[in-house]
């Protein structure tokens, strides 16, 4: 089945998701999620609750044992691996805890990377990917003289904001964020979260934010918790 975006559908619709790494390991059960386009979800996930596994399933990089994941009305696990990679490039932005960037590219080149992988996201940028990247970097308060520097010369906070710009470029429908603030101090953390959510709202992108830090939850429209193994 080819994957395509359908405007009317939910950004994300997860039902009865189950996964087991090996038969000896316990079955991981994940909560059902229905997330409307443009809404933000906080997922409380302390370590050991299968946070990384959940994100891998959502990103289409792992296949569930049972249950369905519908993204923009498409059951992503019905598609072949190659189509899932393309779908991710077209519709999903990602931010990790750290090491978000390709070390040998400049900040600007890191931000425009999704537009080079996806024609759809390139088309969604205003005037050009470079212009859009400059706007995002400026909005995320990265000084202009840092844009053409190697990302390894940026501070951790700046690197995370460059990663946010990369996730936002081309207005993907969904942004998966995996503890992006855990390496930041509290001032930086709040500023990062504000900027990310504001910019995502402007672009009508839904943010799915996983963290162990419950104090961040009030920034989001919805919140749920991962249970890890159950029943």
């Amino acid at each position: 089945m080819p994957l395509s975006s359908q405007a009317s559908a939910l950004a994300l619709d997860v039902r009865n998701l189950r996964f087991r790494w090996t038969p000896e390991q316990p079955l991981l059960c994940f909560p059902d999620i229905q997330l409307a386009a443009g809404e933000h979800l906080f997922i409380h996930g302390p370590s050991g609750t299968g946070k990384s596994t959940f994100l891998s399933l959502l990103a289409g990089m792992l296949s569930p044992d049972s249950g369905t994941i519908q993204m923009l009305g498409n059951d992503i696990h019905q598609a072949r691996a190659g189509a899932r990679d393309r779908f991710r490039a077209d519709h999903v932005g990602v931010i990790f805890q750290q090491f978000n960037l390709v070390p040998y590219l400049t900040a600007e080149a890191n931000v425009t990377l999704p537009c080079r992988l996806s024609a759809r996201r390139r088309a969604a940028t205003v005037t050009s990917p470079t212009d859009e990247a400059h706007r995002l970097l400026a909005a995320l308060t990265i000084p202009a003289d840092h844009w053409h520097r190697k990302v390894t010369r940026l501070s951790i906070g700046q690197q995370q904001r460059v990663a946010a710009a990369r996730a936002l470029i081309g207005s993907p429908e969904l942004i998966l964020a995996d503890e992006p603030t855990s390496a930041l101090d509290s001032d930086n953390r709040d500023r990062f979260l504000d900027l990310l959510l504001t910019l995502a709202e402007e672009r009508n992108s839904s943010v799915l934010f996983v963290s162990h830090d419950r104090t961040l939850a009030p920034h989001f429209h919805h919140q749920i918790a991962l249970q890890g193994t159950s029943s």
Partner: protein
Amino acid sequence: MKAALALSLASSSLWHRRKVLALVCLTLTLSVTLLLGIQYLRTEVKQSFTSTISDTDLIIGARSGQLNLLLYTVFHIGNATNNIRWSTFKKLEQDEHIRWLIPISLGDSYKGYRVVATDSRMLTHFRYGQGQPLTVAKGQWFDGIFDVVAGAGVARALGHQVGDSIVLSHGGGQTSFSNHEQTPFTVTGILAPTGTPVDQAVYISLDGMEAMHVGWSSGVAIPGRTLTPDKAEGRDFTPHAITAAFAGLEQKILTFRVQRAINESAAEPLSAILPGVALSDLWRLMGQFERALIGITGFVVVTSLIGLIAVLLTLQAQRAHEIAVLRAIGASPSLMAALYVIECVVLALLACVLAVALGTLAILALSPWILAHYGLHIPLRPLNLNEWVLLTSVPATALLVALAPAFSTWRQSRSLGFGDTGEK
């Protein structure tokens, strides 16, 4: 689009790791230079070797083996088994199939260089390379009995000028105890360099050869019976025998028939050989060595490539984060694999370009020195087909060996999870 992305990522990545990779690239460059250089030299030396003598259809000497006759007449190595009677040579001159003959008489030496006794026919008929004749660079071809013309190599090595007086030695060898002191020769000319054994000999007349041996018996001068230059004037020095002759035929198509006729000559046992055939036989003999050399060099290149792969594999561990990022933003596993292949091939291509540049510089710099010291002309020329094949085999081999890390990256990145670096 993806190919462009892969290329730009690979080039950025190579530039990012340039300090480590420069060293690997240098190793590869040196080994490719060695490989290409040996192949180039091999071609040039073979070219130079097989064009030692040209236009000569037959070399005629006393009955002996093909290689022996070739070695002592053309390369001045070894000695003649026997002589040809002058009367036999005269008879050959009458042969209607033979257009020209160059008589040569060997046996003496000058400070380790051969003395070749011949006549003006050497200058008119002898050809080397692509049919080039001998030219006298300074002075003129010998005219008098005690005149000598020096080959370019001899004149250069011993610093001889036109007008120098030299004493030839009896017999071959570097040092001879019996010199033709009573009959000194005068240098009248110096030949232009040819890059062939012609440069490594001195040339005198057949008369001069006879004249300096008057009064010699069993390799020793008998006091009082030898000639002095003033006594020699007016005497007849027609030789009794010569060592060999180069022959040019009226019709090339008759070469084998004339050869057969000479080999079966009733007058005296003779051998006639085709210099081209003998030269390629000799080259085949030496070819084993140069083939082994090129084989070894091939292994050097493969070793460098394996070194390159080892470095790339070491870097692979450092690239886990980068691959996790690229995978998560939707890059396919084959793009990851392509990065390795492209990086490896680009390095190999770079090494090839550098090797060609290095080789060109080396030839430009060393070619005059090689000509001066070894009499070998190594010109700068475009690469031939063999060398192109050899050169393109380097990136092709790089492509093959890069498949190993590429495949392992492809397989690993297929099973990577979100933000997963595969370090578990």
